[in-house]
């Protein structure tokens, strides 16, 4: 008779046997993993939200400029508040209306030991302004026609017309070494940046990290830390977690909702500054329904902007005063006020204008490009839904977004933010025809813009900008929402670092206590 074995473990397997197997398996898993290189000295680790795809100079994204400006500097630099301050140039003066002369700093060395002279500056700028070279930020100094070397430390820049914002424009152009540039070519610059900056290129792993060492001979004084590692941590939760866990010392782009996580930790604190970005919802004014200015105005009444600022931005940032510019920007018109929240009025105006409530209105936006961008869009869409508008949010990827923008087919409404960097010219340009970003056209606005750009008379410029803001307010080519704060979080032991209004990391003076 076969024994009934159904009640016993068929193979008499012991726990020990299984345990042995587990040990072997576990040990196998631990093999062959990299060990991090141990470096002596202080290393500052920064958690960035988005990396540029390469270190190619001249891409006018702040992510790119932020990394490149660690190694390469401009003639005039921006500080954290967005003002242009002397960099590789010590001073400047106007020779005539269109020519500016720059006195360059002496005794500055590139990382390879060679000396910085006007030759390098001229070579770089002449390269940039040559359209055949395809330099991405050419537009920032487009009015410049020629850079000439006067002597070893003197440079002349000639423009085709008066260029009042020449300094601001120059802050975007990082100077290269002529000899190095000629030797390695443009691609070589991307592969291994070399400049006069406070940090020296060490290693670049795309999508992962950027490693730099301190430039002990930096003209502004040797950096306090010995090494910098900038890591890309795109997921905000992970980024915050890394700071709280002590793996990073500084992180960018703190989402508003996660601020409590930072503030409740004992190791980190928030660092905030007003940025010069004006966040807006732009209408496509070429097609219904937004070809009707009454509809655009009605939409302005439908959104409770103050509530969004209070709840989503937790009271941070500022409410745009019915215009594109933030209150600290030159050209801001203090006489304008935002329209109040009045949903009933909005609904009535829409009905009066014959608005078809069933028209789908997708609001296009990128995700994570501006603080709380998707959240704000969602909230706005909800408020529009409350008055019966069929609003949704369409989050698009970077590549598709750029394509939409270039083709100027971004849908009936899209969210975007324009930085002014302190001067109205930089932001106001995006509503002119020449920018190829505006489908709205207004002759008076165009005329005023050119006027303001072609004179050095600051009062005249300010008057022009005031009037331009009035036009924007009356015509509503966009709904003007918020000036956004720039939110960083830092380890409490970090000193010498401040939040930047233009998202550039300035680490030369940073130190870890």
């Amino acid at each position, binding site marked *: 008779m*076969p024994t009934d074995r159904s009640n016993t473990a068929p193979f008499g397997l012991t726990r020990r046997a299984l345990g042995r197997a587990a040990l072997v398996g576990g040990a196998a898993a631990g093999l062959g993993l990299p060990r991090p290189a141990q470096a002596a000295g202080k290393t500052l680790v920064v958690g960035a939200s988005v990396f540029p795809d390469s270190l190619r100079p001249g891409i006018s994204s702040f992510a790119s400029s932020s990394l490149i400006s660690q190694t390469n500097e401009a003639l005039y630099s921006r500080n954290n508040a967005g003002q242009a301050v002397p960099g590789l140039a010590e001073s400047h003066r106007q020779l005539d209306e269109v020519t500016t002369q720059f006195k360059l700093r002496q005794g500055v060395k590139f990382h390879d030991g060679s000396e910085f002279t006007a030759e390098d500056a001229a070579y770089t700028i002449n390269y940039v302004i040559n359209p055949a070279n395809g330099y991405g930020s050419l537009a920032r100094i487009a009015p410049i026609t020629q850079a000439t070397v006067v002597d070893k430390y003197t440079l002349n820049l000639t423009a085709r017309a008066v260029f009042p914002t020449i300094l601001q424009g120059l802050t975007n152009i990082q100077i290269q070494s002529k000899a190095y540039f000629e030797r390695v070519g443009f691609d070589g610059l991307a592969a291994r940046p070399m400049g006069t900056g406070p940090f020296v290129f060490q290693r670049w792993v795309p999508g992962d990290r950027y490693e730099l060492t301190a430039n002990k001979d930096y003209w502004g004084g040797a950096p306090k830390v010995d090494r910098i590692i900038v890591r890309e941590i795109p997921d905000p939760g992970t980024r915050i977690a890394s700071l709280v866990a002590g793996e990073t010392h500084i992180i960018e782009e703190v989402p508003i*909702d996660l601020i409590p996580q930072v503030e409740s930790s004992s190791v980190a604190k928030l660092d905030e500054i007003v940025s010069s970005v004006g966040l807006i919802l732009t209408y496509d004014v070429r097609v219904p329904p937004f070809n009707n200015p009454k509809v655009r105005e009605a939409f302005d009444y439908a959104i409770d902007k103050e509530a969004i600022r209070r709840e989503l931005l937790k009271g941070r940032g500022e409410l745009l005063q019915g215009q594109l510019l933030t209150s600290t920007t030159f050209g801001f018109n203090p006489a304008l006020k935002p329209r109040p929240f009045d949903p009933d009025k909005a609904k009535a105006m829409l009905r009066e204008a014959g608005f078809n409530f069933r028209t789908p209105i997708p609001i296009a936006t990128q995700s994570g490009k501006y603080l709380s961008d998707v959240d704000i869009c*969602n909230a706005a869409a*909800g408020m529009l839904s*409350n008055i019966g508008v069929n609003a949704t949010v*369409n989050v698009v990827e970077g590549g598709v977004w750029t394509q939409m923008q270039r083709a100027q087919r971004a849908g009936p409404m899209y969210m975007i933010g324009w930085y002014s960097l302190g001067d109205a010219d930089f932001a106001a340009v995006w509503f002119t025809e020449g920018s190829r970003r505006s489908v709205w056209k207004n002759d008076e606005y165009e005329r005023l813009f050119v006027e303001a750009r072609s004179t050095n008379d600051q009062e005249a410029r300010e008057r022009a900008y005031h009037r331009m803001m009035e036009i924007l307010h009356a015509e509503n080519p966009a709904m003007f929402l918020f000036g956004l704060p720039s939110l960083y979080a830092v380890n409490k032991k970090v000193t010498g670092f401040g939040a930047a209004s233009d998202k550039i990391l300035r680490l030369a003076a940073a130190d870890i206590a």
Partner: protein
Amino acid sequence: MSATTLRPRRPLFGKGFKMTLGGGIVLGAVLLAIFAPLVAPYDPYQQSLSMRMKPPAWMAGGSPAHWLGTDAYGRDLLSRLIYGSRLSILVGVASMLFSCLLGSAAGLVAGYKGGRWEQVIMRFADAQMAFPDILLAILMVAALGGSAVNLIFVLGVSRWMIYARVVFNLTRSLRQRPFVEAATLYGASDRYVIWRHLLPQMVPVLTVVSTLQVAQMVLQETALSYLGLGLPAPTATWGNILAEGSSRLFVAPWIANLAGLAIIILVWGINMFGNGLREHVDPKSRLAPR
């Protein structure tokens, strides 16, 4: 009878239990989806910015006004989850049906006609099997955009090979069977043979596979939503809610946790039902997983 034959014991979780429990969960979800407007206490799209991220009623700061708390825009989570069942189930079932039809047709043709048809179709299936299906989905959604129809299409296209394989194998083996040969001998047309003889034989297996695939489709949708490629906001799908909650896990963990729980329960129910069904259809396979 030999010493090591394992005599089957009456298991605690028999097929009946599985089908009942699983089926119950699925039925519950479907009813919830159908009667959502009656059951949900609030409009799932109604925002209330001053009531953002309120915790569920059993946590500090919660209230019975919102049993499961609110999400990042002050919308009632319970209502959103209830309505979310609609889209999750709809997308799951529709994409399963689409891929089932597509794949079964392909498998039938390949298996029945053989020859070049078989080569082309099955090679194509193999080629696609080699491709990570989520990568394909990302590719297609990035290209086509995220709408319900696109999503169903994309998910359906990503999985047809599974049905094709099953149906192909079945067709080939069934075609050899005497009753099929007999029917052909008697002059039955291809369509008659397929319709009357082959397909009925396949229904049980297909049902099992389909059921289990619905579960997979639901999970795929949540993955796509997490990557930002699902249905656009403010649509209430469980995947979207989970994605929204994932970025606020520290401050409002209930959003992601409850959405995740909903997904797990439904998918678990479907899987259980499917497994029970499979055991019913093929008793030997009680021992085998999916």
